[in-house]
């Protein structure tokens, strides 16, 4: 789906620093974990933006910021052109009707002491204006049906369902307020392999049916490619490359993206001896103390002096067709290289 019209979600220079403090009584700040450090992107109606990156890159903090579960240090989030103010209750409540989330672990994201009906119906109890009281049970049953569960199971408890079914319950809860945006934070990674495809199909069907826009955060690059229209690659709190799925997967220009793509094991043993593999050395540096200039330079094989001095901006570089944050950006198709 091509982006069309005004963006439904505009994120500008979003920053989240978690202060590191020392001392018990008199706390003083000795530093900060720069979990998200200047992230900007747009999301259009009905579009899926995939966000990939490794642990510590800030993708989960980004999800929390988008959901207004954390207060940003600076930067702004606009939904339908309207600024989200985390300090204003009424503004926040309206905002929450428009943006909902699906969490990673279906075993911990559902309250074990509530029935499925209560879990999916809770959004209506909080936002009483969405559905009148008498209507709620019917709505919950409809939602169960929409996500492919038996509407008669409304009085059951989460532990009576399997992981995949629980994830469907979580999705139904996210759909209840008819949001336009759903943030999916690793929605299939906790599920068995044979169940993952079912849930991905469900998410795609719901998108088509309700015109949802997804922020799809995952570490499984093949799943992200399948579901996303555009993909953002994050490293140490910053987007290092963003573009259409084909631009990222077939013509990656940032060295980190190339290393990431080449490290993903391909489920086909043919030609495995000759496949190009960029094995990065070491671990990502700590977000409390990121390298100067380009944050990837400590693991990058292209790094030169300029990389330590000047931070590369996220922009379209010569010879590439999408934005990347590398002084030496160069298209290199690692996946089809062999």
């Amino acid at each position, binding site marked *: 789906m091509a982006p069309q019209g005004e963006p439904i979600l505009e994120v500008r220079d979003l920053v989240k620093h978690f202060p590191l403090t020392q001392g018990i009584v008199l706390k003083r700040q000795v530093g900060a974990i720069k979990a998200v450090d200047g992230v900007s992107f747009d999301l259009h109606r009905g579009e899926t933006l995939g966000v990939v990156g490794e642990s510590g890159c800030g993708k989960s903090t980004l999800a929390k910021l988008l959901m207004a579960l954390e207060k940003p240090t600076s930067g702004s989030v606009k939904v339908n052109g309207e600024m989200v103010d985390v300090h204003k209750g009424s503004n926040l409540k309206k905002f929450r009707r428009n943006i909902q989330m699906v969490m990673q672990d279906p075993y911990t*994201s559902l309250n074990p002491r509530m*029935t499925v009906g209560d879990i999916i119906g809770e959004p209506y109890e909080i936002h009483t204006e969405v559905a009148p009281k008498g209507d709620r049970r019917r709505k919950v049953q409809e939602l169960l049906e929409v996500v492919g569960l038996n509407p008669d199971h409304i009085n059951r408890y989460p532990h*009576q369902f399997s992981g995949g*079914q629980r994830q469907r319950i979580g999705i139904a809860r996210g759909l209840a307020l008819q949001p336009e945006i759903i943030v999916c934070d690793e929605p299939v990674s906790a599920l068995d392999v044979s169940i993952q495809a079912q849930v991905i199909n469900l998410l795609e*069907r719901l998108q088509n049916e309700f015109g949802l826009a997804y922020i799809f955060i995952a570490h499984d690059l093949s799943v992200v490619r399948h579901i996303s229209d555009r993909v953002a690659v994050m490293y140490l709190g910053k987007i290092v490359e963003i573009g259409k799925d084909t631009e990222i997967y077939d013509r990656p220009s940032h060295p980190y993206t190339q290393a990431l793509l080449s490290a993903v094991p391909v489920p086909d043993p043919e030609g495995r001896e000759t496949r190009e593999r960029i094995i990065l050395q070491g671990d990502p540096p700590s977000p409390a103390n990121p390298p100067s200039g380009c944050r990837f330079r400590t693991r990058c094989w292209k790094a030169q002096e300029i990389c330590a001095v000047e931070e590369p901006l996220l922009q379209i570089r010569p010879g590439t067709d999408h934005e990347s944050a590398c002084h030496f950006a160069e298209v290199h198709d690692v996946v089809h290289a062999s």
Partner: protein
Amino acid sequence: MSDTLTEQKPKSEKPPKQKKPASLWSDAWYDLRRSKVFIIAAVLIAILVVMSIIPGLFSSVNAFDSSTCDLSIARQGVSAAHPFGTDNLGCDTYSRVIYGARISIMVGVFSTLVTTLLGGLLGLLAGFYGRWTDTILSRLAEVFFAIPSTLGALLILAVVGRENAGIWTVVLALSVLAWPMVLRIMRAAVMSSKSQDYVIAARALGAGPGRIMGRHILPNALAPVIVVATMNMGVFIAAEAALSFLGVGIQSPDISWGLMIADARNRFLQAPEALLFPALFLSITVLAFVMLGDAVRDALDPKLR
């Protein structure tokens, strides 16, 4: 795409535990009913509760009525009329033991009620709000926690004085020193369930602090508090007996097992039954509540399964 709905609906699915009751509470109740320890404890406690409400069912002599005592038959041994013998004032020991259950149960129930409500509420607030709320409440709790409980209660009751001592002062003395334990347990349970994903999900839906505490945190943090409350019941009953034995707790003419033990201790060699029977009732009562707490913990803690 047309057959996705029918394809995806796992129609023939059976939930894994179909025969068992559904909610975690009823699951726990199901387990409890099958626990021998629970049944024994529950029967004993039921008898004790009935005994404390209608002692007349168990004894034809009304021990609360001092006119039933007869100094002329003081310090008698076991006989058909007085199965446990009589005490220094010629009162029937058996009926006094039966009537003594009331004070024990009342002290146990009310002390538990006060500590659980107070400690539970403050623990919920401290755990949920954290920051300075937690700092103030936790420090306050630590001050009380630092006092050795028997010594502290002794001190409080000594200050109150014998003339004012009675069941309510005992309840007060025990509660003042015991609520911090409940606060600690509640606080820890709240803090661990506060960071659970379902709480984050509720926040994302826009739920306010009242709903989050009431519907999401409290039901999931209650189990350890219930267990401790049950066990505390036995502890309080034992503590009341100890305080009464030391002369600062329940005062004559009220009847308490601790008091009876104190009265009987000087003639233990001549009339062991006067001490043994109240002591036996006391031990059984404490044991019953501790067993109940054990059974409840096993049923409520899914990790032990």
